[in-house]
């Protein structure tokens, strides 16, 4: 009965998912006091998350601008959830930043408004039924994160923001050209006007679209949106943006924005895959993914800054996910989806931990963080757990997805599995090396205890651990037909 009650809600969930952040943006932009705004931020994201949950129950008809299907709802729910937990984390985090004076209340207002704008942009990009609209939304999300990366206004922060901004803009431009080309490819079939940019139309008539145009379009799109995903060699903005921005933003970037960009790529991959005479997008994605995986694995070794290190690990995992989707097939797609979910949860949890650490120790330099499990047992073991999870050790969720990816690859393309496994091992070695330095040994630096709450971090880790042992069958079924959708 809950369902029909939901059906008679005053606002449709879809609009709620978009309206709440939009409204919150404006409100937070004008509200002067920072502490209530922090809580308001949490409340707004929670409301968004609940609205997204209702989408699971009642699914509206595809509209001209918005639509919900199995694929994007995965991303929406995941995104809104991570957005919620991250806002909860940032509430305590930002307060501390204010105390030590890295931020002023004015900037804080700006920060919260931008946070909501980001949520709005991402939800819009995910729910958009129109490739042009999606493009605009992703640009909005990018801009909001750019200003948040630069919010500390230090030399490095501005430099990172600028790098992010320029590379992002070029990526955006390429993506737009690709979008236009897709429209051109669709126009003869679907006819002029709005319909030729609508997902539902495009995906139904995909087979009839002009293949050559689609090929060119996909190149622009994967380079454009791939810049956002952080695939090598387009990754350059990612490490610095993660390292210099506020930690909640690093968590959101790794946990959400990369996924959104990946979602865009996936959408176009579906269309291309459905077109018989277009080039198969799989190999391109797979090779870019493999490249990023191995490249990031090597880059992990020389990192001195803890946030930058985990940023590179994000590149590695995005590469792995792209590889899985590039391989295609029900098993690999399932693994890719699972891995994406697990990575978002784990990586944001790790960034929460890193945030606590950098606030306690007052540094992000790995060399100045030692013996954490002794000085801060809960935090230290939390970090170890997170890294163990991200390194793909059981019984945590990522092991399952990596197991599926590697075995399915090895069964189909044995030669591809060898660089894959090597890359995984190389990255594993780097991560374990650093974590054993950070977590163990003689503690150094300040022993101050952590004020902020561990709840967001451990809730994520608990979910990951649970998923590693037990996946509820509805989720499995859902993932499976998404995997079928992805082809």
């Amino acid at each position, binding site marked *: 009965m809950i369902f029909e009650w939901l059906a008679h809600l005053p606002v449709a969930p879809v609009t709620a998912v978009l309206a709440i952040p939009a409204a919150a943006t404006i409100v937070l932009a004008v509200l002067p006091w920072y502490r209530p705004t922090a809580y308001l931020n949490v409340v707004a994201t929670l409301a968004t998350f609940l609205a997204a949950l209702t989408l699971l129950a009642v699914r509206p008809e595809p509209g001209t601008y918005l639509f919900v299907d199995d694929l994007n709802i995965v991303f929406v729910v995941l995104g809104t959830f991570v957005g919620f937990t991250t806002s909860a984390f940032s509430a305590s985090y930002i307060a501390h930043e204010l105390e030590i004076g890295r931020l002023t209340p004015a900037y804080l207002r700006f920060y919260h408004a931008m946070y909501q704008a980001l949520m709005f942009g991402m939800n819009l990009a995910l729910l958009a039924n129109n490739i042009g609209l999606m493009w605009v939304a992703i640009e909005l999300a990018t801009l909001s994160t750019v200003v948040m990366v630069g919010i500390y206004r230090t030399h490095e922060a501005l430099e990172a923001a600028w790098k992010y901004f320029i590379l992002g803009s070029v990526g955006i431009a390429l993506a737009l050209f690709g979008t236009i080309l897709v429209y051109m490819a669709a126009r003869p079939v679907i006819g002029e006007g709005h319909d030729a940019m609508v997902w539902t139309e495009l995906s139904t008539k995909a087979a009839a679209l002009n293949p050559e145009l689609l090929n060119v379009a996909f190149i622009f799109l994967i380079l454009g949106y791939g810049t956002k995903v952080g695939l090598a060699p387009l990754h350059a903005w990612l490490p610095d943006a993660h390292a210099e921005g506020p930690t909640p933003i690093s968590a959101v970037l790794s946990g959400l924005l990369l996924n959104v960009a990946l979602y865009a790529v996936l959408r176009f991959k579906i269309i291309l895959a459905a077109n018989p005479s277009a080039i198969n997008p799989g190999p391109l994605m797979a090779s870019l993914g493999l490249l990023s995986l191995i490249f990031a694995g090597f880059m992990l070794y020389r990192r001195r800054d803890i946030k930058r290190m985990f940023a590179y690990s994000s590149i590695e995992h995005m590469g792995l996910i792209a590889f899985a989707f590039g391989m295609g097939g029900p098993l690999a797609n399932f693994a890719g989806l699972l891995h994406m979910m697990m990575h978002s949860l784990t990586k944001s949890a790790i960034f929460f931990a890193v945030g606590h650490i950098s606030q306690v120790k007052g540094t992000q330099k790995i060399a100045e963080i030692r013996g954490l499990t002794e000085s801060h047992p809960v935090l230290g073991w939390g970090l170890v757990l997170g890294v163990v999870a991200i390194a793909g050790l059981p019984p945590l969720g990522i092991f399952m997805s990596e197991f599926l990816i*590697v075995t399915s690859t090895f069964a189909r393309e044995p030669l591809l599995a060898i660089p894959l496994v090597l890359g995984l091992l190389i990255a594993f070695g780097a991560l374990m090396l650093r974590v054993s330095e950070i977590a163990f040994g003689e503690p150094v630096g300040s022993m101050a205890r952590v004020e902020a709450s561990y709840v967001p971090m451990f809730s994520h880790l608990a979910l990951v651990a649970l998923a590693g042992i037990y996946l509820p069958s509805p989720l499995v079924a859902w993932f499976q037909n998404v995997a079928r959708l992805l082809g």
Partner: protein
Amino acid sequence: MEVSLAAIGLLLGCAVLAVTLQSRAAATRLVYCICLAACLAMLAASARHLLSGAEARAIHLPIGLPWIGARLRIDELSAFFQIVINLGAAAASLYAIGYGRHEEAPERVLPFYPAFLAGMNVVLLADDAFTFLVSWEFMSLSSWALVVSSHRESENRQAGYIYILMASFGTLSLLLALGLLAGPTGSYGFAEMRSNPPSPGTAALVLALVLAGAGSKAGLVPLHIWLPLAHPAAPSHVSALMSGVMTKVAVYGFVRVMLDLIGPPAWWWSLPVLALASASAVLGVLFALMQRDLKRLLAFSTIENIGIIFIGIALALAFKASDMPAASALALTAALLHVLNHSLFKSLLFFVAGAILSATGERDIEKLGGLVHAMPHTTVACLGGCLAISALPPLNGFVSEWLLFQAILLSPELPQWGLKLMIPAAGAMLALGAALSATCFVRAFGISFLGRPRSPVSASAHDVDAYSRTGMFVLLAACVAVGLLPGFAIDGMAGAVDRLVGTRMPVQASIPWLSIVPISESRSSYNGLLVFFFITVSTIVAVKAIHRFASNALRRGPAWDCGYPAQNPQTQYTGDSFAQPVRRVFADVLRARETVEMPTPGDPRPARLSVAIRDLLWELLYAPISGWISSSAALLNHLQFLTIRRYLSLVFGALVLLLLMVAIWP
């Protein structure tokens, strides 16, 4: 089966419990008591299953990989290994009830210890690839946490790092191997794998991967480097588990895949196994002989024993391939019996090392000596363990090696030339290893227990508490029992052997005088019980006769030592000097370099002798790899420091490249 599940659940719960009450003092005792109970329960259950010869029991849990779930199954093989594991684990828990009190940071041990036990048990029960690998890696992970438990020493952190790296290398290799067996359809259940054996080429690949995977966990040369680092780093009861028990889980993995899942073997499979195994058997003990650190010495000797076990498995493979089931059964029985024996005496010896460590705070035998007076009980336990591991009758170590020799003596019947030439060489290596290990443990025992104390700590040592003593003596009793009545052990594991090679050794329990006869009375037979009986009797006779007829006068005096004046303990023979003859004989293998620095006459400086031993494997295999990785990391690292324009050029280049591809696309 249900018992095992319940016990595993209990262990996991205990781990969680330990996290919560790690601070309280009683936690140690409570946790280890729970572990002891769980292990005993599983021991009883698996023993009942093995001896009752019941059919394999399977259970299907709705967890783990969806659409397959977690399949658990217990058959004779897993039951046998469960007995081995839980025997060692129970003893370790008992020992730890006392020993754990010396732990400086119990909260770093208590949560992981039960998890470690649970992990090992699940590996034995797993019946699908995913469950197997999850528990396998979980086992490595929890033991890694135990290795780094005393994390302040940098070499422990180093050891832990190398350990976890090698462990996940092994897991990935096993993952690939099982992936191959599962095939593109992704049928991860062991039953499906049994039902469709792979093609010869695939099987060869699987062999290589399993050898890498299980071998790296078991410590086969050349994948052993982590073992002597990691095992000593853990607390002693955990070292006992890792050395005595976890390596057996690796052996189980190898046996399970190569003798069960993969179907009928090819004869040449045994060649690489045999080569690596005999290399391990000799190199392990040679390096053990050179160690000063007692626990590291034991770890190296583990490598040797693993080599012995794998020689047996290789023989079993060869015989099975050329359709000689009886011989194959003999070889496999020898291997499995040695699995049991090694788990017994290696755990025992690690307990002894732990006792010495907690009594003196020393692991360096050069600082010990004269413990025979200070720690009488430990002395007895250690002496027994040393006799057993040196493969001397009437203890258990001898029986398994004797059976192995008998199996080797059957190998001339094999048709393949490669094996004809390989197996005698392996036999020589085996004998060499046995003799060297006797030397090694004479050194270990003699230097640390006999003679005069080389340091005040060893003079003022005291025997350990009752729990630890009980733990040691339980294992010692087991060693003696298996040594005197091997027939029952052989009959006990016959079920497992039968399942794997299709037949079993002749029933031993019915043979008169309880002696063991591998093939036929006329060929060979051995009776540990009678040997023991004769030795005891003749000892008694000798003693009685002497005390009857000879004078019983006895006077204590200073040591004679060819009339040299009584010197201080430092002038005793040291461990290094004891090892010197062997070091010189095998100098080429060990790459031992001795440099003597003799001051000129009148120069008051002391003369120094310094010995350097190089590990060729490290220099030839591991150093290059790590060097390559770090150099390429340094090379790629430049990409972190480009200007925005250069990054843009990367994007631009990628774009132009792809456009060109499309342009020339047919």
